[in-house]
């Protein structure tokens, strides 16, 4: 028993070290694209908490496993190990404690999901239609139709999605959120771009031959530039 306590102390120290090490590895391999919407803040924060949890649990199991493999390896003898069938208290602990972690993450995610999908009365609406293998954007305000998506910065946006043929998916990695387009119905996705720049919209639902090339340019521009662009579009429509 005293021996076990010594083992647990050593293992605990190793777990702490390994957790930090695994987090560092994951953090340097899992390179997120730059964030360009308000929603990326909380989503990335939650992502980071998940990575810490993964690092800790990986370290917990891996350290105990490797430790047992070294300390309890058979040293040439043919004898058997301790005759222990289990430990009810331990089983209950490692069933109940994870329940709390699960409820924490589920609750955290639920509240965030409600925030992410909450309608905003001031949201700017664009209709995006996926077609094999291109995108078409309609601006209900002006009636303009364009092959590139232009959005004003710092304005909540709702993109109504539809499709004329098969399933597609609206995804700009810098915007984080993602939504399928479904023929026969309208789905939508909400975000608030907050960084001026040019991004690529990538279809993320297998849609046939040129699925990998089903891209569109997304430009997030300043409010003034957006007004200018809108009037240009209107002028073109009237011609």
């Amino acid at each position, binding site marked *: 028993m005293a021996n076990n306590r010594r083992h647990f102390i050593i293992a605990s120290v190793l777990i702490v070290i390994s957790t930090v090490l695994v987090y560092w590895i994951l953090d340097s391999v899992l390179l997120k694209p730059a964030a360009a919407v308000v929603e990326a803040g909380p989503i990335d924060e939650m*992502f980071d908490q998940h990575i810490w949890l993964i690092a800790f649990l990986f370290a917990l*199991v891996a350290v105990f496993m490797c430790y047992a493999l070294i300390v309890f*390896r*058979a040293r040439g003898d043919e004898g058997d*190990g301790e005759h222990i069938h289990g430990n009810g208290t331990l089983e209950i602990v490692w069933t109940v404690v994870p329940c709390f972690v699960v409820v924490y993450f589920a609750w955290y995610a639920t509240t965030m999901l409600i925030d992410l999908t909450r309608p905003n009365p001031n949201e700017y609406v664009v209709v995006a239609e996926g077609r094999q293998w291109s995108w078409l954007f309609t601006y209900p305000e002006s009636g303009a139709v364009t092959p590139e998506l232009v959005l004003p910065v710092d304005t909540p946006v709702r993109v109504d999605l539809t499709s004329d043929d*098969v399933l597609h998916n609206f*995804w700009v*990695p810098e915007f984080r959120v993602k939504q399928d387009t479904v023929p026969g119905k309208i789905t939508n996705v909400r975000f608030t771009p907050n960084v001026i720049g040019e991004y690529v919209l990538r279809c993320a*639902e297998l849609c*046939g031959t040129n699925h990998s090339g089903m891209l569109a340019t997304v430009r997030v521009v300043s409010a003034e530039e957006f007004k200018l662009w809108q009037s240009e579009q209107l002028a073109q429509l009237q011609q």
Partner: protein
Amino acid sequence: MSLFTLGLARGLFGQVLGMVVGMLLTCGVRILLGWEAWAAEPAWTVGSVCSIIGFLLAVGALDDWLQWTKGVATPIHHGPPVDKPAWTRYFSVDYNHKVIGVQYTVWGILLLMVGGTVAMIFRTELARSGLQFLGLDLYNSFIGMHGMIMIFAILLGVGGMANYLVPLMIGAEDMAFPRLNALGFWFNVPGSVLLLVSIFIGGWDAGWTAYPPLSARGPIGYQLFFLGVFAIGLSSIVGSLNLLVTLLRMRPAGMSLFRMPIFCWAVFATSLIQLTATQLIGTSFLMVSVQRALGMGFFDPRGILGEVSPMVGGGDPVLFQHLFWFYSHPAVYIFVLPGLGIVSELLPVFSRKPLFGYKWIALSSMAIAIVGFIVWGHHMFVSGYNDILRIPFMYATLLVAIPTGVKFFSWLGTMWGGKIHFDTPMLFVLGAISVFLIGGLTGPILATVPTDLPLHDSYFVVGHFHATMFGGFVFPFFAALYYWFPKVTGRMYNETLGKIHFYIMTPAFWVQTLGQMGVGVMGMRRRIADYDPTLGQGQIENWQLAVTIAGFAIAFGVMLMLWNFFQNAEVGVAAGDNPWRSRSPEWQIPSPIPEHSFPAPLHVVGEPYDYGLADSGYVTTASPGDD
């Protein structure tokens, strides 16, 4: 001896004949209706159905039942065929569960090699951005091909382990329904032939998930794909029914459910899912098949398929996804539960210590099986079904972590305080734990909707999924192959080669899975033939190359294993009856196992995993009254 003494050759001939008959039948009906005689899609569809029946009739899997319809009794034939060489029984209908187990396993390994080769081809393409040698359509066909062939391979591997081991572990002479068992195996052959042939008549380009409307508009290959899957599904259903009855009705005196070897619990849980969920994938694929062939608009909202046949529309593509995932999520547990059962089965043997928390591990399999039925919605978090419903699916999905955690911690408890031996099977068990840990831990981040939004349909999912499949099936399956190889053949494999295989494959897989997850987070979508080389601050190509190299290393390791088995199956060192000093019933009888396995009925006299308890036994063939 002519080729046709082999059932397999007769069956394949029957399959071709069936295809021709089905096609002629279609042409005949069309002529009678006054239509143009030849139409490719209906001809291939009816031909495929007839080809499955043709195969089963020609191979002889239905012989006994046909005899019964005439009132002729057909006793079960035991032992190798009398008028042919003994090895031919492996290529023909045979009712011995040990033969059927080997048939399943070998066919599964063959498909594993085909599926792996396909993966290596498109993995080579992905090593650099830009299209090097694959066309877009071929690439799209290959990813679906890889997925579905591997699923077949895994189902066959599971079937192989379950059919070979379950009767031995519970001391039964055979499965409850030997004829059904043989039929269950032989369904797989015409099914996989249809799948492989479909690539030559246009393939199918919507991935293994075959979502309509794309799959409803795709090439004719889809009809063969759907019917191939249907045949494999029938195999799953009859096979699992057989296993459930065997487990419930054929245990020996004294073997309560909680005294079964733990692998039997895993098979029990898996079979429950297979028996009740497989119908849903069969239904969903059949509905797309019928939508294509007859113009019923199940999944078609607008009648967009006018050019094939008139469509009325009114369907819903999302409905397909519900039906499909109601099977295909639990299917993941069909694949991994037996593998995790192998881990639990082998750990006590090589740790020389009782399985820690037997009942908890057994019941955690059941818990995973049951919760698995209410989590399908997480595959559809971005599909556009009711926003609010995503929340209960999220809770249910996260719940899976709890019984899975119980397994991990109980495995640690088993190793702790043991005397651990590092033979090749044990190494693969440890590899399985490390890899399944990666797969399991990357689950919750996909289960919580906000973090799933960026990761859904990205390569991160590919990494997560392959980690669960390798950790939950491939590594344990290889552990099982090494572990039971001496029991099946009576010969020992080469231990050094086995260890080399392990030390190549395991680190290679870590690199592969981490790389796949990495490129996914960088923004690479799954199922794309070409990717943007600027992703991940330009690092994506390095990782793609690393993943490709790792993939080839894994393939090399697998070839090493097969060569090892091939070399030693007949001329290896004699292994003895119980090289692992296991307590399980199959190790108490000679290797290779005699035709009737046990000389007398078993009696259970102790616990299955009482390692470390002196003078204790698990089973005996002597009746308890004898001593």
